[in-house]
């Protein structure tokens, strides 16, 4: 009897000790908080947000566009693609995007590649939120227009639009699995906007203007 009690106590100490180690000494707690609890996995709810392309000039969290985005906009449009590890829809979408950009996203956590589509350079940033640095993760919040109601997979295309007679970066975001045709339509629309507005685009002015907008 005493032996059994000793086993019980030993197991409790062992399990709780290991749990404390995993919680305090690794990044698991943060990973669960930011990558699982705070992000709606659309696979889990068996739904995807309704398809609607709506362009925004301000970022979703009202922060400035990162400088690399503005730099890349001089070269063409930017296609941001976010996923997490455990997500069936993300797997399906990976295949579609791999097909469009002629690359292999299987087991790739971060990839940047450029393809010419509809007469415009389209730079793909493929980001697996479970495996990238905080800097890259923060991009998700910049373009996640639905906030806690959004989720993954998420695609944002940043292009150029006209606001109050001046040209500024603008973006639209889609959630959930999308068919190839829809994504190509999305790219076509963004490319058209880019070609219409590119000649008046001045990257150096953009963040000053955005700060004023706030």
């Amino acid at each position: 009897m005493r032996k059994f009690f000793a086993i019980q106590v030993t197991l409790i100490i062992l399990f709780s000790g290991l749990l404390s180690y995993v919680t305090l000494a690794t990044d698991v707690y943060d990973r669960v908080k930011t990558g699982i609890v705070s992000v709606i996995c659309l696979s889990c709810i068996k739904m995807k947000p309704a398809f609607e392309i709506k362009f925004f000039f301000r970022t979703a969290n009202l922060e400035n566009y990162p400088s690399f985005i503005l730099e890349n906009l001089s070269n063409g449009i930017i296609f941001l693609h976010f996923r997490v590890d455990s997500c069936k829809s993300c797997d399906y979408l990976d295949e579609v995007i791999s097909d469009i950009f002629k690359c292999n996203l299987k087991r790739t956590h971060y990839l940047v590649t450029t393809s010419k589509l509809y007469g415009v350079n389209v730079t793909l940033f493929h980001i697996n939120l479970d495996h990238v640095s905080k800097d890259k993760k923060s991009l998700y919040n910049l373009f996640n227009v639905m906030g806690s109601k959004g989720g993954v997979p998420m695609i944002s295309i940043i292009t150029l639009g006209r606001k109050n007679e001046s040209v500024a970066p603008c973006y639209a975001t889609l959630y959930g699995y999308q068919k190839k045709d829809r994504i190509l339509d999305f790219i076509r629309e963004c490319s058209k906007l880019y070609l219409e507005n590119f000649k008046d685009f001045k990257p150096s002015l953009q963040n000053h203007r955005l700060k004023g907008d706030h």
Partner: protein
Amino acid sequence: MSKDLQRKRLLSQLIFLLISNLGARFKTGLCYPFLYCHACPYSIAGCPIGIIEHAIYKKHFNLFLLLYPILMIASLSMIVGRAICGWMCPIGLLQRITSTERLTKLSRKIPHSIERFLRYAKYINLILFVFLTPHFLGFMFTDICPIGFLVGTIPLSILYPGRFSPNEFFPFALMVFIAFIILIFLFNRGWCKFFCPIGAFIGLFNKVSLLRIEVDKSKCVHCNACIKVCPMGIDVPNVERSQECILCGRCIDACQYGAISFKVGV
């Protein structure tokens, strides 16, 4: 005395339901020790199954992420065993409401041998759909989880009408959800008995947990009153430390001879 125990249990279940849904304001990186979906708009912590699937999905392997929910459940289960199911789990509370004597009478007509076989389904669920298919095929329990449907899909559709549309798993998940609803109305604790993968895992700790149900055989007169009220259908006087026991205490209430009690320790 008897009403007191069940009243305390109801209070405990309501408190844990409330705590589980405090996530409207803030989210934590904790993990529920029971089955509750983090896709719920108000969830405060992560679903243990969801976290396990994240850790092993499609031949990825993250040891610490895998250990986190397992150790969370193991630590608590070592102390209170499946009292987690009986006293904490919000789905347990739901089944407490849905299980009416009139409907669950039907389930008693199922032969014992079939019922016994069905009880293994939860272990198959745990091994096959939580560990094997997510790891090798990418098909997850959460893709068709009825709890996710109940606390994630339905509330989100009501809160944000028109913002979401069904994905390719929706028809299957809907069928599973309908089956789940029928199950919890027809069978007393049907989900816990037959399908809950977390219940299956916690049940293993009933064999060694500190808290348990003890039957004083010198006082027992074999009236079987405890067996009749047991929601899990356990042969209480003859089975010690049953993996199925959710420590709800109904047998303690039913025993007029004071032969059954909670015991802490060996």
